[in-house]
């Protein structure tokens, strides 16, 4: 028997490491193996402990485990009778979260121990690399990728084979392969999961890519905010090199390749490929003009190819199973699967990998279980700060690069934030502009000043100081920023504003004309009052008010002093009698 604790950053944050320690202690001398795996993908059920039988089959999945339950679990497992821990087992309805997914990128995640190359090898690991080095020419590799239809998963969706081919045929002997692991979108954690849960798969994909384009040195540019990912990747690189899957004369072939890790300092713009290259070179992380494209002149002015983590994680599967198999999945224009980090006001949040062509509704309602707390779905935000908000009327849009783009949003790298009726869409646009204006590198005018001015206009609208014509001004400025910004960050930064204006214009108008926030989220436009008919004088609100704005005598109706109220909503959330109104 074996117990496996899900130890991705998400699991650890939920207490998985403590659960592991408690289980270790409870097991003591008993004949139960204890191991770890990476992210299983069900953030909403962490910490998760999987029980495997002696044949290596998953016997039971225990969820929301806490360290105090370790003894009971070990007793049950060692006795072979799991009925006593029935209550800890995952509910059938939650199983649909994984059952409805198709996992290629995440094929090893939550299954293997990310620190063990043997686990990886047991699950078809490095077979693709072996085949490539044994009998495939670089051109054949590129052809296979072309057949698969794989496109860049970082967001732009550019055909991967094309970039590889361009880099391969760029003049020069010295070429570089770079993995973009600078995952910076708020609410996105797909790449982190792969790095933490399946680093060997990334390494294998990168070596195959390096072989295809003909480069000897590759880099993983990973944000320093991912310490666990860096640790596991470093470990995997060390082991892979020891076992000759990496380094000189890989698997006895003539091909040599080294992979280096570069930890980025956390600038969002460094996810933009030219800024990433600048940062890699030790320069200020600031985008450069394209052309020349990196395939022509990239790192140190040499031909360079950049793909993101998810793209590389697909490569070994494609080579192993054949490009045709991959191409069977998905739609005409978008092949394979896509991983999403599903978050927000959703019942089941976590990592979701689905075949292209599924609808947003299927992902959000079938897999994610719909909206939490019985509220109404309002919008889903795709593509992070570069993306847009898609309303309920467009829920049947399929996961497909073109189809999503037609809504005004983008596929993006995989952030999928679900919003309910209590989310103000103007405030949402403001949130994203706060992010992009801070993260703008400061180089070009349309981005540095354009995003700042957009934010200022949105801020005044949310504060009830919007003016007639502000929406038109926003649109004009958005279009100018899209047209004039130097890099992808700026060119896409207006998307959250434009899509919210497009789909939720009435909310903008309500803020500007009626000085009201329909979602009751914008503090400056909300007033809390106590209904004296319903107030019992229980003092609950008064005690919790952080600014002591609620006065009264116990057992008679209380009152809110509006001049002191900071609109935090604490009274509203704590009243047991529904006596607080919010208007």
């Amino acid at each position: 028997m074996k117990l496996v604790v899900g130890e991705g950053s998400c699991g650890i944050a939920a207490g998985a490491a403590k659960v592991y320690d408690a289980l270790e202690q409870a097991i003591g001398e008993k004949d139960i193996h204890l191991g770890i795996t990476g992210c299983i993908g069900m953030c909403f059920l962490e910490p998760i402990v999987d029980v495997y039988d002696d044949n290596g089959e998953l016997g039971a999945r225990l969820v929301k485990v806490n360290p105090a339950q370790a003894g009971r679990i070990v007793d049950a497992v060692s006795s072979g009778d799991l009925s006593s821990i029935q209550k800890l087992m995952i509910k059938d309805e939650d199983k649909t979260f994984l059952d409805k997914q198709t996992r290629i990128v995440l094929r090893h995640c939550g299954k293997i121990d990310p620190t063990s190359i043997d686990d990886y090898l047991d699950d078809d690991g490095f077979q693709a690399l072996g085949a490539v080095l044994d009998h495939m020419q670089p051109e054949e590799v590129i052809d296979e990728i072309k057949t698969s239809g794989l496109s860049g998963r970082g967001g732009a969706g550019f055909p991967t084979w094309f970039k590889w081919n361009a880099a391969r045929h760029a003049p020069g002997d010295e070429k570089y392969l770079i993995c973009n692991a600078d995952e910076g979108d708020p609410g996105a954690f797909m790449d982190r999961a792969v790095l933490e849960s399946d680093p060997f798969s990334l390494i294998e994909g990168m070596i195959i890519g390096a072989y295809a384009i003909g480069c000897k040195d590759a880099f993983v540019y990973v944000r320093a905010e991912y310490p666990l990912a860096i640790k596991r990747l470093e470990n995997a690189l060390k082991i892979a090199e020891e076992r000759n899957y990496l380094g000189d004369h890989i698997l006895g072939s003539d091909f040599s390749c080294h992979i280096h890790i570069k930890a980025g300092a956390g600038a969002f713009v460094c996810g933009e490929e030219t800024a990433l290259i600048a940062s890699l070179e030790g320069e200020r992380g600031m985008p450069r003009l394209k052309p020349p494209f990196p395939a022509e002149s990239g790192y140190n002015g040499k031909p360079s190819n950049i793909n993101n983590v998810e793209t590389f994680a697909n490569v070994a599967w494609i080579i192993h199973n054949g490009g045709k198999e991959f191409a069977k999945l998905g739609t005409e224009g978008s092949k394979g699967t896509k991983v999403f980090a599903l978050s927000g006001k959703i019942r089941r949040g976590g990592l979701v990998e689905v075949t292209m062509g599924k609808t947003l509704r299927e992902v959000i309602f079938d897999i994610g279980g719909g909206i939490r707390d019985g509220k109404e779905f309002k919008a889903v935000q795709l593509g992070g700060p570069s993306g847009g908000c898609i309303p309920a009327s467009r829920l049947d849009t399929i996961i497909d690069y073109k189809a999503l783009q037609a809504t005004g949003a983008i596929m993006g790298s995989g952030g999928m934030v679900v919003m309910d009726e209590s989310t103000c869409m103007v405030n949402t646009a403001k949130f994203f502009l706060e992010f992009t204006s801070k993260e703008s590198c400061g180089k070009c005018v349309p981005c540095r000043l354009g995003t700042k001015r957009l934010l200022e206009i949105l801020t005044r609208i949310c504060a009830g100081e919007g003016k007639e014509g502000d929406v038109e001004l926003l649109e004009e400025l958005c279009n100018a920023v899209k047209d004039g910004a130097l890099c992808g960050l700026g060119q896409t930064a207006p998307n959250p504003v434009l899509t919210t204006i497009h789909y939720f214009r009435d909310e903008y108008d309500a803020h500007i004309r009626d000085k009201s926030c329909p979602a009751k989220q914008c503090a400056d436009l909300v007033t809390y009052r106590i209904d004296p008919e319903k107030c019992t004088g229980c003092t609950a609100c008064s005690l919790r008010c952080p600014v002591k704005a609620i006065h009264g005598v116990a057992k008679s109706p209380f009152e809110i002093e509006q001049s002191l109220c900071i609109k935090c909503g604490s009274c509203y959330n704590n009243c047991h009698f529904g006596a607080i109104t919010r208007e």
Partner: protein
Amino acid sequence: MDSIKITIDDNELTARKGQTILEIARRNGINIPTLCHDERVKPYGACGICVVEAKGSAKLLRACSTKASDGMVIHTDTDRVKQARKVAMELIMSDHVGDCRGPCTINCPAHTDCQSYVHEIAQGNFQEAVKIIRDRIPLPSCVGRICPHPCEDACRRNLVDEPVSICALKRFASDTDYDSEHSYVPPVAPDTGKKVCVIGAGVSGITVAYFLRQNGHKIDVLDAMPKNGGMFRYGIPNYRLPKDVLEQEINVLRYMGVSFHNNVCVGKDVTLDELRKKYDAVVVAIGAWKDQPLRCKGTDLDGVIGGCEFLEQIGLGKRPEIGKNVAIVGGGNTAMDACRSAVRLGAENVYIIYRRTREEMPAEDDEITEAMEEGVQFKFLYNPVELSGENGKLTTMKVQKMRLGEPDESGRRRPIPLENEYTDIQVDTVIGALGHTLRPEGFEQLEMTDKGTIEAGLHSFRTSLDGVFAVGEATNKGATIAIDAIAQAGQAVDQIDAYLYGGTSFYKEPYYSEKKVSESDLADRPKIPRHPVQKRDRTLAKSDFQEVNYRYTKEDAMAEAKRCLECGCFDYGHCTLIKRANEMPIHPERFAGSQHPSYKEQELVCIERDQGKCILCGLCVRICDEVAKKGILGLVGRGFPTVVKPEFRDPAVIAGCKDCQLCFDACPTGALKLLVPEKEK
């Protein structure tokens, strides 16, 4: 060598492979504006001004960096391109914190470069000062005496103590220059063969003649009066503007080759059509000489006269009989000139009858004060209702008491009559100074406005007749102050000039960057009181028409000039940023928001950086790195608050900065200032 074909704005061009769109355009004389580009350094693409549209490309391309490819079709001036450039420029200007020009210059209707001439006076370079003044003002000694000086109203020194005495300094410089052996006469361009007739030798006409003559045209100025100067001669009394001073100024135009023809009345001696045939262009600058009549009974009595008419008599050298008791109705400058002239003519009781209060009086405050000091009795909140007399001779003015109501469209509070509150004043003469308008006789062919003034294009100065332009008080909104008339006439010159060469042009008010400054920003400036202008003894002054105000002494003038806070930018004349900004119809106020804090810092040996003015084009950083090979500067921070500073503030790096000045020379605006070390000064 590989050559490619490229089309830019419908021009089919051949270029070398590898050339950028900008290089090709410039080589072929096609203008693509740039701001952050410099041929010495690698393309950078920060400003977004050089964008162009390429056929088949969804994105706009930056011309500075995009290499042309064969068959490319480029458009440099589509609406989309213009819009992108305009918004980029508006964004830049919304965070460019600085004054292009001092508030004095901006508030002067003629945008006279006050700061510069005040600076020259402070340095003792009086003729240099006059050259700067004469760039805008053809009659500096006159204007320096009578201008209501909007420049001083705007002077930022108001926030410290009192404004710089800009107007009196102008008079000082100009008078001093006339006294010098070789006083300044503006250069005149070679003869163009074009002839222009200017009707009216007043301020507007003289201004038009002065500037058109400098452009090399032959100018004839016609005037109906025996002498030149218009209102300067016949409207403003000698004690304010001595006529010898005026004559001296007009003589400068004679030196320049302008011909004056007096006693020529258009409509009587010559018709407008005859002039149109004889000249390439005609400029109507006939002024506003007709008094608005008093709106009460009895105005036909002997002893009732209009303000302009009264002053005209004095200007002609006559001494009108006005008796002992004189009342002037009105609150403007003509009323002040009339009442103070009445005092000088020996009247014992001189009254100002004004239906509002001193607050609302349009006359200059100094003029009011001086009139009061000379004994004029101000009767505020009174309005004449009836004039009566004996044997056709005026004796009595009945006035009604008023109170102030709500503000009217002019913003002044409206006077409301109080019923049954009347007073009689014994008067020998009543002078009506309620404004003046033109005498349209001889110009009936021209279309008129509702106000009865000549209709002239606000930016073209054209009238309804081809080749006939009109400027000054006879046009549009009517009577105004002299500097306004000078400004308008100056604006008209380029449009007339364009017409002479067969073109059309319109005056465009320049865009200036302006900075908000409050009292607290200037709290550290030492308070230095304004140097008063010496005046003639009061008793003596009111007994004749000799000039009241004296010229500054040289010492006082230089000391006064040193009070200037020098608000305007030292780089204005060379600033690429403001040049570009003025090429587009921008409204940066649309994007008003937070701005970079406007502080100056000197972290390098001889360079002072104004962070408020810096537009982060990165030229200094790149020049220092790529051309000077020093790499001393870098961008610090991210997003909006980004600033340029020495890299890591490393003293060793900073020490590398010597005196190459490359960054200073490259800066497209006035963000960098070269500080000359003390010993080299």
